């Protein structure tokens, strides 16, 4: 079955695009039902992988736009936290998880179109051509959205530079994460986008 064959890649796209496992699960299910219904429209002139990705990405973008229309929804961080926090605090894994959450939070502040290209190209390593095929846009548009998205992210990730890189950090200060339990600091201040950046952005 195509779904089982591709599910891990499709999940990777959905969960990064939406940043919330529950929403990603719903989006993936919607997308697979949608793919099922559209299957007769698939003509084999685009790789089936690309076609499936496109449906998943579009399902995610639909949800992102709906979410933007009702910005009062919150709790995404917390739910993501629950799933993202498998390791004890204070470990490399926990530090890496925290960095991931910060990166995801910053990414969420971008327009959906920029998020989508950065998820595919920078997070998942898709080529510009592949991302363009998945999104149904030109490679040039992919590049310009990538460039604009990275430039916008730059100040929002400034506090992470040199952190969370297991190769560069060496003896990274463990004080950043509490070591008193398995719960990854829910109220870690670094998780928040700095207030200076936050004005006018939809709450996550």
């Amino acid at each position, binding site marked *: *079955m*195509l*779904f*089982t064959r*591709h*599910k*891990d*890649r499709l*999940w*990777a796209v959905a*969960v*990064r695009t939406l940043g919330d496992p529950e929403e990603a699960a719903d989006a993936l*299910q919607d997308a*697979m*039902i*949608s793919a*099922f*219904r*559209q*299957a*007769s*429209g*698939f003509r*084999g002139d*685009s*790789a*089936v*992988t*690309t*076609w499936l*990705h*496109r449906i998943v990405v579009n399902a995610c973008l*639909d949800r992102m736009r709906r979410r933007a229309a009702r910005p009062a929804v919150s709790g995404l961080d917390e739910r*993501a936290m629950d799933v*993202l926090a498998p390791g004890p605090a204070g470990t490399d894994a926990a530090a890496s998880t925290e*960095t*991931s959450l910060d*990166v*995801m939070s910053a990414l969420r502040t971008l327009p959906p179109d920029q998020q989508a290209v950065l998820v595919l190209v*920078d*997070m*998942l390593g*898709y*080529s510009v051509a*592949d991302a363009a*095929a*998945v999104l149904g846009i*030109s490679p*040039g548009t992919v*590049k*310009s959205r990538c*460039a604009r998205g*990275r*430039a916008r992210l*730059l*100040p929002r*990730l*400034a506090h*992470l530079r040199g952190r*969370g890189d297991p190769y560069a950090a060496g003896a990274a200060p463990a004080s950043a994460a509490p070591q008193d339990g398995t719960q990854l600091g829910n109220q870690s201040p670094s998780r928040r986008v700095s207030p200076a950046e936050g004005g006018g952005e939809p709450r996550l």
Partner: protein
Amino acid sequence: MRGHADAATLAAFREELLSARKAAQVSAHLAACPRCAALEAQLAEVTALLNRATAPPMPDALTARIQAALAAEAAARTPATAPAREPVPAMSGAAGHGGTQSTNGHRPGKDTGRRARWRDHDRSWLALRVAAVTAAVAVIAGGGYGVAQLLTGSSPAVNGAASGTGAAPNIKVKGPIPGMPAGGINAGPASGSSSSQRSVGTTAPLVIISGTNYQPTSLGAQASAVLQHLSGSGNSSARPGPTVAPAASQASLFPHLQACLIRISNGQRPQLVDLAHYLGHPALIVVLPGTNGAQPKALVIAPGCDATTANVLATAPLPRTG
């Protein structure tokens, strides 16, 4: 080039989006300006940070949930007797990393892939797969409990710990849901009681594993048959006690079973909670009493159900008996 380059310009430069003339200016400036060179390095680090960001793995239950949803979708549209056909689209070999073959420049209309359209499904690759499953299941599931028994014998989820009663159907009982009040979700008497709940309706809901593979067309009848069997066996020897644990693999699909039941039962007390299959996929079958004299109804719940998400795949009223 006057002044320093900003991040947007440098990002465009890195993507070779600038004109040749402008790019040459930026390049020359970068060579001479440590500040802008540092900014460019930081842009590269943005990509590195994004690339290192991890995400939670796909939940195990999600695969089953989506497969069940696809099966339900197929069942709603595809006759169970649909002949299997050859798979149509050749698989791209580029499944591994994002489809490196997808550089054909195919640009569909903006809405392609967006709107779910009800088209003919002759070439549906998913339908082919699911139709085959449906047809296979239709052969063995005649809708009656006895036929469903055939399934339990070979089902790995039902290993015969409860087979001591000879011909008795191999129903496994999980027992009261931990934490569920003994009087049920709602302390009041169950409404719409019928004869079939005579014995199962007097204590906390039992979670059983009947081994039934429920079908869309016979959902109500199958649930009714399981209920009748339970009430029948309750008369003679002691009703199967909470001794047999369910197969872990099945129970693990509903880690939030109690919250799920509270969510879907709406204050009513389930007459039946069956960790079973629907169209061959793991599913929870719940029978709720009918309200205002209506027949009880059976609900098919996909894995992943919890306090906030019901995941109801299908519902059907139980047939009137007697």
